[in-house]
């Protein structure tokens, strides 16, 4: 087991190197440090000295891939690529354009992101599975047909409208909860309710359809016929046998996204003014702060790879037939 995990972590390393190369290419080669400096200092009235200064402050004045002036290993290690990459791999994200420490910001903003993402995920998962099970239980009836129609309709509405509509009806017309904002501690509850509810509702359409397909696939298997032949009631077959077996694809599908919950939701957080990582990313994109975007890309990649690892492990935990090799 340990052996396997170690090997998987070693596999992850080249992927992270690849991610790093892609982001480096995007942020330093396509868009050179000179361009960045000019954009930050204003397009016009910028002297070459000011550009040089800006680059020196951030250490961007080094050569990109190859340093002729250095000796020995220095030709590689004294370059922008090497220094910036090693910093990322040590999770040292540097400072943002406004001088704040990115690593500290990320740690602070993780809490609010999780306060929205975790409840949305758990409640959403349970709601979707419940509705999907009910639809399968009432299959080939008008109840199921209307359920199918409803999920297609729900799926065809852009997520933005759920948020705008929800804020308008619940926040502005009914005055039940504040429209946006955040508070740490227990006071967060009234700020979290609406985003979570909207997150769950906007996910119902595609979620229920997805789980319904999984359940229907299980229903066609032989053990279901055996269970019925034994004389079990349809409810018992569904909730006991099918649900348990369907847990394998459901769990493994859910585990992948688990680590990514840390990243927060871009849209929800920015609409509701929640100081999480999602709104952090959006602010960085709008301010064109490449240091933050690069840090978030790297963080996202690390979390995704952890997700893949967890998926493989969870396969063995829920399904004893699968062996790690």
């Amino acid at each position, binding site marked *: 087991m340990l052996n396997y995990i170690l090997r998987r972590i070693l596999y992850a390393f080249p992927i992270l190197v690849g991610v790093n190369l892609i982001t480096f290419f995007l942020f330093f080669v396509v868009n050179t440090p000179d361009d960045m400096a000019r954009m930050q200092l204003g397009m016009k009235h910028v002297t070459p000295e000011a550009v040089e200064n800006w680059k020196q402050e951030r250490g961007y004045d080094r050569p990109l891939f190859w340093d002729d002036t250095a000796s020995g290993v220095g030709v590689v290690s004294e370059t922008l690529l090497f220094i910036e990459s090693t910093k990322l791999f040590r999770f040292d994200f540097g400072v943002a354009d406004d001088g704040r420490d990115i690593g500290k910001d990320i740690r602070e903003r993780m809490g609010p992101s999780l306060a929205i993402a975790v409840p949305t995920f758990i409640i959403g998962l349970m709601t979707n599975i419940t509705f999907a099970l009910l639809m399968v239980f009432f299959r080939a009836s008008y109840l199921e047909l209307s359920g199918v129609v409803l999920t297609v309709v729900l799926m065809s*509405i*852009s997520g933005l409208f759920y948020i705008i509509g929800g804020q308008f009806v619940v926040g502005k017309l009914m005055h039940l909860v504040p429209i946006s904002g955040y508070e740490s501690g227990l006071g967060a509850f009234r700020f979290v309710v609406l985003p979570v509810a909207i997150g769950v509702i906007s996910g119902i359409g595609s979620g229920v359809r997805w789980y319904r397909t999984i359940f229907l696939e299980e229903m066609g298997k032989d053990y279901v016929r055996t269970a019925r032949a034994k004389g079990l009631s349809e409810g018992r077959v569904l909730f006991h046998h099918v649900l348990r077996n369907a847990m394998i694809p459901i769990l493994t599908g859910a585990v992948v996204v688990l680590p990514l919950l840390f990243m927060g939701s871009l849209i929800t957080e920015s609409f509701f003014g929640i100081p999480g990582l999602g709104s952090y990313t959006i602010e960085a994109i709008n301010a064109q702060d490449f240091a933050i975007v690069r840090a*978030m890309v790297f963080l996202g990649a690390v979390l995704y790879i952890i997700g893949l690892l967890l998926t493989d492990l969870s396969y063995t935990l829920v399904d004893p037939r699968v062996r790690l090799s």
Partner: protein
Amino acid sequence: MIELYAAIGAKPLFLWTDLLIWLLVAVIVLGVSYTRKRPHLLEPWHRVARSRLAMGSLVVLLVYVVIGLLDSIHYRPALKSTEANAEVHYAVEARTVLDWLVGDLGEQSEKSYSAPLATHLYSRESIETEAGTVRDYPRLQHGGAHLEDPAQQRGDLTTSLFVGGLQGVLVWLAIALIVAMWLRNRQGRSPLQWVVSKIRGQSDEGDVLPWHTILWVTCVVALLMMMAIQVGVKYHILGTDKVGQDVFYQAVKSIRTGLVIGTLTTLIMLPFAILLGIMAGYFRGWIDDAIQYTYTTLNSIPGVLLIAAAILMIQVYIDNNAALFETTEERADLRLLFLCIILGVTSWTGLCRLLRGETLKLREMDYITAAHAFGVSHLRIITRHILPNVMHVVLISIVLDFSGLVLAEAVLSYVGVGVDPTMYSWGNMINGARLEMAREPVVWWTLLASFLFMFVMVLAANLFSDVVREAFDPRLQSRGERS
């Protein structure tokens, strides 16, 4: 050529996305004519054609497509010069055939917000009258300007709707009769008798298409369109936005953007996904490892961030090379094309993985082994034996991706990394209007317009793709037979 342009008073403008869209149309036409002669390929399409749901939504989708295609022929009108024999200059702002058809709708702008079908502005202003300055709601410059007294508006609207409805019925009847005349299977009835029998819901033997549904949906669409045209020339059907531009016009113009993103993204990523997916599954070994590594790496970068990074980069390039673009459309178009490419980069991995899995299964089949034994080359095995047998996976993923991409555009534009801000798109409309719900009194029509147009298209696409998936996915069919 230059003389010809001067004589017409317009110079065609070839945008990248226009060319690709028409290329796509050509590909589809070729595909249809190829499929028509091959019964085994036609069979699943027959299943789609028999579905009332699929054909109903197809009619709606086709209306969107026709509007989008009309909007994909750009030209630059000649500017009127005061001197004779002067060199002809062309406008910096391009127009499309659609603009030409709807006439002045795009230019009929008011001062600021006005409600749907309103005759007055939405906010009070100081108006100079004979009795002095009063604060009141001023009349609109275009919306209902033909009325002497705004109180006549109700009657005028009713007349317009009635005339529009009548025109709609006539247009629909004309279309239905043309279709009926062209049809062979009329069972000896005249075209008119055929239309009447179909409207009543009779179906003939040998009918594949659900004519009843198709005719009714077409009827509703024709009615709505003609009514919109009748009312739209006199009023702002869905009001005007902050700078006074007609919202209905914006929503219609946004159709092209949505279609381009939904289709071109797939068109661009398709060759890579197919080639790499099949290669990985077929050759295995180090090729498989390399391809898997590539898509895992691309997948592990959060999609929105990759798109954001790429779009920020292209924007820097566009800003630094402003001289390369003669018109604003060309600039916006490059960004749109780039958005399609980068969306393709983030979305090809799913299809690639599916194709790899499917090919892994196929290569173990006996007929592939037989082909190997006969000494058939790899290239020939892939093109003749594997590719045709994975096409259903490709087709299903094309239709399933479409609506997701249209919805993604809105989100990306909200984040600020979608299409160019000068381009009409539902995402830009929502983005510009998101604070309007907080206004007092509420300005709701921009959001309603983008919601309606987007919802109808995405819903139709979803319904259609469901039927297509059911018809093509062998797994779903076997399940249907068992239960």
